[in-house]
């Protein structure tokens, strides 16, 4: 069950100092409620959700504030009861740093829930589509960091194996670890619900070998379950084994074909925290309004895991954890490898916020200026996708789009391994992101100009057609006039005679044709009765 010798390996990867112990010393603590919550309408991959409430309206805890914008989108709910004080643009935690539409809720501290209809153990009798609707309406997205709407993933039905991703390979982050320690049973129930929806035959819970207590907790929950549906797979601690594709490679030995979904090789991956959220949505009928977040780093006084309501300002979380230390330096949402730094702590915690990392000044090794690439190839050794980062860097610097695409820029998962090992301190991921956005932009512009060009061409064609038609009409008119004048001129000659003769010949031919037809008809009538 917990053997590690039967599993595969992905290429590259890093062994990093974990710093997990900073935040795993205490139990998950609940946060006191705040006065105001800021709920961004775009907390997921896909289309922004559409607000259902108006400014000044009173909302209850768990009430849907915005519905999914289309198929790939997610609902958002009110974390507390209170008044919608505003709906406006506000800075949101996103890598782009751009503001987005947010709903502001003024807490009335009554904590009044909407009416709930928990399914409890009845989920076994529910249909797949029924459960999927609950999951969709609860606004559940992948809580590992990607925030892809979970219900969308579960529309695939040809799945043999459900992989529960409890790898948590980024340093510092421990929210999944403590979740499993404290809520193993609920996590399994959540996984069972997912398994029920997608009709999976087995569920493999993948945990890195640096979380012995979580492994123990899950194992004992599995022993209690006794159905044989669940299995633990302990995986070695190598970054980024928690990447979906890398984990699938470790567990199944297969690579997800490029540009396809894992479902095509019979696998579906969900994060443990997502399974727990699904448990709460289905079993307790609680939409996704809170999550467990690791607040950690050497720049915060009391690192710990907290259960935090979505929309809570980051500053409140830090305050709950004793505040910043004097040497605090950067504020990062997510892990140190793939997280992004925030410019302010007034931003809210969102569904995808698995970690708030505050670094200390002495830890920062980033240099202002990087050295040239010496092509040492360390990046090649660590790339889990088998890219050639040094070539991509070269072509990204020279903006050589063709070569970038030839060298598979778009297969880059931005895990940061290359930049981590780069002896020249080149922010490689930054270069790739920039190159990707530039190419997308060019593509968009090309499409837009294509459309414009097509419209212009169509317009030209229409003009041409009108012109031709007009000319044709004129020509016909001219011809008619010419004929008329010709006819008039020929009146006195034999032309007129010819016309008359032709008309007579035609009339005779018509009469004969009619005759033949009539005779045929008679023949048929005679034949039919016989």
């Amino acid at each position: 069950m917990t053997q590690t010798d039967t599993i595969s390996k992905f290429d590259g990867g890093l062994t990093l100092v974990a710093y997990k112990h900073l935040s795993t010393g205490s139990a998950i603590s609940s946060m006191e409620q705040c006065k105001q919550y800021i709920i961004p309408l775009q907390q997921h991959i896909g289309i922004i959700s559409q607000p259902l409430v108006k400014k000044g309206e009173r909302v209850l805890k768990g009430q849907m504030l915005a519905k999914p914008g289309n198929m790939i989108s997610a609902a958002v709910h009110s974390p507390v009861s209170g008044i919608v004080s505003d709906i406006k643009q506000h800075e949101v935690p996103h890598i782009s740093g751009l503001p987005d539409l947010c709903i502001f809720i003024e807490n009335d501290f009554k904590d009044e829930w909407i009416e709930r209809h928990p399914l409890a153990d009845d989920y076994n009798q529910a249909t797949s589509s029924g459960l999927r609707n609950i999951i969709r309406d609860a606004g559940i997205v992948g809580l590992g960091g990607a925030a892809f709407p979970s219900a969308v993933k579960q529309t695939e039905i040809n799945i043999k194996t459900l992989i529960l991703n409890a790898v948590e390979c980024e340093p510092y982050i421990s929210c999944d670890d403590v979740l499993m320690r404290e809520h193993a049973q609920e996590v399994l129930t959540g996984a069972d619900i997912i398994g029920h929806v997608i009709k999976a035959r087995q569920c493999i819970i993948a945990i890195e070998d640096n979380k012995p207590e979580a492994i123990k907790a899950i194992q004992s929950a599995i022993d209690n379950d006794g159905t044989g549906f669940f299995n633990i797979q302990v995986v070695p601690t190598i970054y980024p084994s928690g990447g979906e594709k890398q984990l699938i490679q470790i567990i199944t030995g297969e690579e997800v074909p490029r540009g396809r979904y894992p479902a095509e090789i019979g696998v579906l991956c969900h994060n443990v925290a997502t399974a727990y959220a699904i448990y709460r949505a289905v079993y307790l009928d609680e939409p996704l309004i809170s999550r467990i977040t690791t607040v950690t780093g050497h720049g915060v006084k009391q690192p710990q895991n907290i259960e935090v309501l979505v929309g809570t300002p980051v500053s409140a979380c830090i305050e709950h954890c004793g505040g910043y230390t004097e040497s605090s330096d950067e504020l990062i949402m997510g892990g140190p490898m793939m997280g992004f730094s925030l410019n302010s702590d007034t931003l809210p915690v969102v569904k995808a916020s698995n970690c708030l990392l505050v670094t200390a000044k002495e830890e920062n090794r980033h240099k202002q200026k990087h050295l040239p690439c010496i092509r040492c190839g360390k990046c090649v050794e660590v790339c889990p996708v088998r890219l050639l980062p040094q070539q991509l860097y070269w072509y990204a610097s020279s903006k050589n789009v063709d070569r970038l695409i030839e060298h598979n820029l778009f297969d880059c998962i931005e895990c940061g391994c290359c930049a981590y090992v780069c002896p020249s301190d080149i922010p490689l991921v930054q270069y790739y992101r920039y190159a990707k956005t530039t190419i997308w932009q060019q593509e968009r512009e090309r499409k837009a100009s294509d459309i414009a060009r097509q419209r212009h061409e169509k317009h030209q064609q229409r003009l041409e057609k009108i012109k031709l038609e007009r000319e044709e009409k004129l020509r016909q008119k001219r011809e008619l006039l010419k004929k008329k004048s010709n006819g008039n001129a020929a009146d006195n000659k034999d032309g007129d005679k010819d016309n008359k003769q032709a008309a007579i010949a035609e009339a005779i031919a018509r009469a004969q044709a009619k005759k033949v037809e009539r005779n045929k008809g008679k023949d048929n009538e005679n034949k039919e009765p016989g």
Partner: protein
Amino acid sequence: MLFKQTPSPHIKANISVQDMMFKVLYALIPGALAMMYFFGWGVLFNLIIAISVCLITEAIILRLRQHDVYHTLMDGSALLTACLLALALPSLAPWWLTVIASVFAIAVAKHLYGGLGFNPFNPAMVGYIVVMISFPLEMTLWSTPMGVNAGWPDFSTTFNWVFLGTLPVKETIDSISMATPIDLIKTQLSQLHDITETRNNVRYSALFSSISGTGWQWVNLLFLAGGIWLVKKGVADWRIPTAFLISLVLISNLFSVIDYANNSSAMFHAFSGGTMLCAFFIATDPVTASTTPRGRWIYGASIGALVYIIRNWGGYPDGIAFAVVLMNIAAPLIDYYTQPKVYGDPNR
């Protein structure tokens, strides 16, 4: 509270270009000491001249290019070029030869192409080739190794020869220098004396030892030791030296099996001349080598084959520099055609 923002990842491995360059320099020390022991003061003079000229040239050019002189000098790359060049040049090279090679290596081969990371050819080898082509006679001036006849000349003789071009009255350049084993065998073979005959000849027998040349075998063994340490430290790539040595050994073994009398053994080739220096310190120069995993095998093996060809049939004392520079030319092409198949590629 407001914070500064930096791109991810927010942590960094404790590694730097400077660190890598200095590790390579440390790894050179055992082999360099062996060279000084066996070939005398000339090796030290070469190092002193090459290091000072390379650093001064680098500083001037950095100044002209308006770069940060101090920090760039401290990256160690010019120092490394100087050391590799100095160790490749013959121990009795006159001072101006080393100066010309050093200036050419740094000014032309490195900076005219854009400086560190942008040079297509190994600067030390380009410097070496320039003087090799221009001054072939001076490029054969290796001092008599320790253990052969009277050994290398003393300090003042060497100093006067290298810096002033003068020798004591009773000495000639031929009396203080000696051909390298590779060179000797080549000239003897051209005079129809086969290898066994050459090795047994009283005049030359002291030049040869159990593995290869007297002195040379220890120099190569210690460069090998330093190289293995470098590979273990993850500074040098292991594929290039492995491929290079396998290819050189296999080819030389093949020929010596076919015709023992006229072809030196594989061991002789592996531990003669600049073989180990090339394998671990020159061919592995990351900037000018192939960077893909498969490409490095091809690159290393091709250098091995070229070294053998040039040593055996070429007109030069050793084939390292030409082999490396020829493959430098091919490196971008090799890289282009040896891209690994990425994750999930259907053609894998």
